[in-house]
């Protein structure tokens, strides 16, 4: 194992890494930070005590929250009794089969007994254990293990793990997207290295991160975001290398109309006045999310932020830490919250100490100046970012589009599909089927797409054990729906509804016949 330390080093847990804690089927994403406690499955510990250990290791939680790597052979206890009954005809439920009381168990725990030893005690003190069938004994031990085992496994994050984690822990944050649906989306959108993909999501960054993982740092991803800034807490959890972030661009959805109309002025420092769209298509106007903030002045954005982001941010950041929130959000939040700007505070105290004559006024002026300067730099940065994202979009030659949000998908789809090259796939996820029916109908009216399919998947998991194989649980209906299709050149001679028999128009007469 230690024959070659260099070879292992990429697989070792490092300080600052984003990792996933696992116990049973439960996952939790955290960042390894010095002395930072993690609470997981009713136990707390210090994840940084695992630094230097290998990914995939299982740890015992020792007193003081220290993680100790579990010896590989440790896991199978010596609890397998040879005696077993054949059926339960003589097992009576008198509630007295367990001789140990709650207090006894607490005392055992307090003595620092290993989980296996506690389970052994429980088995030894169960008067019915020996009469149980072998299967029932297994089940009993499994159940007790689940309760008393204080282990945790540390994994490297991946799309699979994070998608399962979000679906298990916080489905509301990812619009109840089941992981198999995310898998369908990534495949149906043909996400792969080297392409230029548009993503519009309000799934905490999970969808964005999954797209980035599949692109491996090749190509570009343009995140279209609503509100004041993109939410990327989920992306952080993937722990991508720095160069992945060079391929990530962002564009506020409130500028889409302007960009489509060709009136978006990214050269101007203050876009609000210039970005008013002169002509907006009728489709876009009836679209609530994009129509509302069309002009989207800088001030408005900032104001909108506290309501639209922090709430989400708080939720998203929970597995990590507030400080790990995306750069953009932090920056944008600053002007409204001066307290979060340590630089400024430092300056403030310094100038206050030096100047004696009218320090208050001086200080205030300086602060205002510094603030203005800072804001200017930030605006400039923002403008540059906007310009680069706009440049990527302007060619209207994107290779893929992925939409998964809590917004009505129809206007989003009809707006963003215009940035795609012909013969490129798109996928739209919605928790509900009805908006996708509308999308389907609107796309048919508009033309310019083929292969439209409204689908969902049905997932069933199995317990596979000798003589005990059966389906585990049924997960149907709660996974969401997907509309997928392929763009084609939009027909100029618009033959409205003359589309080839993709929709069964013939049925109408039959049913309608009066």
């Amino acid at each position: 194992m230690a024959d070659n330390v260099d070879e292992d080093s990429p697989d070792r847990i490092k300080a600052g890494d984003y990792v996933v804690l696992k116990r049973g089927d439960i996952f939790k994403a955290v960042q390894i930070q010095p002395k930072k406690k993690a609470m997981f499955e009713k136990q707390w510990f210090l994840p940084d005590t695992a630094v230097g250990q290998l990914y995939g290791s299982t740890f015992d939680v020792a007193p003081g929250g220290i993680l100790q790597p579990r010896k590989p052979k440790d896991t199978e206890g010596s609890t397998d009794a040879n005696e077993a009954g054949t059926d339960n005809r003589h097992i009576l439920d008198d509630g007295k089969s367990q001789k140990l009381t709650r207090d006894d168990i607490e005392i055992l725990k307090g003595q620092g007994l290993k989980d296996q030893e506690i389970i052994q005690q429980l088995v030894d003190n169960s008067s019915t254990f020996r009469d149980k069938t072998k299967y029932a004994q297994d089940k009993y031990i499994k159940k007790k293990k689940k309760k008393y085992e204080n282990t945790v496994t540390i994994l490297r994050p991946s799309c699979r793990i994070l998608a399962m984690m979000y679906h298990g822990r916080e489905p509301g944050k990812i619009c109840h997207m089941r992981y198999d649906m995310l898998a369908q989306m990534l495949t149906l959108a043909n996400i792969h290295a080297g392409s230029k993909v548009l993503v519009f999501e309000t799934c905490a960054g999970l969808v964005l991160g999954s797209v980035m993982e599949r692109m491996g740092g090749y190509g570009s991803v343009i995140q279209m975001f609503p509100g004041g800034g993109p939410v990327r807490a989920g992306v952080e959890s993937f722990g991508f290398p720095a160069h992945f972030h060079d391929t990530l661009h962002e564009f506020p959805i409130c500028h889409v109309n302007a960009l489509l109309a060709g009136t978006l002025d990214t050269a101007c420092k203050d876009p609000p006045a210039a970005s008013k769209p002169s002509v907006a298509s009728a489709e876009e106007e009836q679209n609530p999310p994009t129509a509302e903030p069309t002009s989207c002045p800088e001030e408005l954005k900032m104001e909108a932020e506290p309501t639209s982001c922090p709430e989400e941010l708080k939720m998203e950041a929970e597995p990590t830490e507030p400080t790990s929130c995306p750069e953009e959000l932090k920056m944008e939040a600053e002007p409204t919250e001066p307290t979060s700007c340590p630089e400024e505070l430092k300056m403030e105290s310094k100038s206050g100490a030096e100047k004696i004559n009218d320090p208050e006024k001086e200080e205030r002026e300086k602060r205002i100046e510094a603030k203005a300067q800072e804001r200017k730099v930030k605006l400039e940065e923002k403008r540059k970012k906007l310009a680069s994202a706009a440049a990527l979009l302007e060619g209207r030659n994107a290779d893929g589009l992925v939409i998964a949000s809590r917004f009505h998908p129809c206007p989003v789809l009809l707006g963003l599909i215009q940035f795609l090259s012909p013969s490129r796939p798109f996928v739209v996820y919605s928790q509900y089927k009805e908006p996708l029916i509308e999308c389907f109908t609107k796309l048919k009216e508009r033309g310019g797409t083929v292969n439209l399919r409204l689908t969902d998947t049905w997932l069933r998991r199995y317990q596979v054990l000798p003589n005990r194989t059966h389906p585990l649980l049924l997960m149907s209906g709660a996974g969401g729906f997907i509309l997928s299709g392929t763009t084609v050149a939009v027909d100029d001679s618009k033959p409205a509804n003359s589309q080839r028999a993709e929709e069964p128009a013939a049925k109408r007469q039959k049913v309608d016949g009066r």
Partner: protein
Amino acid sequence: MSFVEYSDLIQDGDVAIVYLGPESMMPVKVKQGAQTQTRYGVIRHSSDLIGRRYGSKVTCSKGGWVYVLHMTPELWTVNLPHRTQILYTTDIATITMMLELKPGAVVCESGTGSGSLSHAILRSIAPSGHLHTVEFHQQRAEKAEEEFKEHRVDRLVTVRNQDVCKDGFGVTGVADAVFLDIPSPWEAVRHAKAAMKRQGGRVCSFSPCIEQVQKTCEALVDQGFEELSTLEVLLRVHDVRTVYLPLPDFGPDETAPQTSVALKTTTLPREMPGHTGYLTFATKPRT
């Protein structure tokens, strides 16, 4: 065109999809001077295809028109020539995610079969990954190799004509993921383990029958694999349509002149594929 890289224009030597309808597509090898017959008439490659943009509408000789689409693994799956039973996109999507495939991944697969999954794997691991695929049927192995060349992905894949249960994958200690779609996967589990990196990785086995799954799970546990999970994913395609629900006649009533109500809804097919196969996943721990 390539399966792993988009291009805008149709070029000589490309494999394109001629789209006549959702149920009617055909793969076409684009060749200077060649012709393709469709039910809307003939398509002349030199004038109708080469140099045109993917996604454009092409008018055929009889005045009908078709779209020409850029190839993707998903379109290939529904258009490829079957040499065996194949895996479809729903299972492929699940496999890709659960095996954690991404650019740079090294994957072992057996059998190659008709190459439906192979193309999807290649798409996901390009440009820096590699696929080692094993097919014991010589003719199928050769045919697959030919296709990979034709689709310009041959640099990313090695086809080996051998029996995976006896001879393994022909590589050791290199794979991040292994996929098995063979009648007796349990006989290949130890080879799968040997093919994988010592850092560990993911394995998947596809089997139609539960007895195969049971044997495979036993073999996986024996070989020290962890995190076993068996699942099944099925696709439901919703047909979007307008239905008209007639209203009963309650007798003379001026206020209700309607006789039916239109409703935009979806219907599920009367019959659908109810089972493809069980997917068993596991993790190989570090050794």
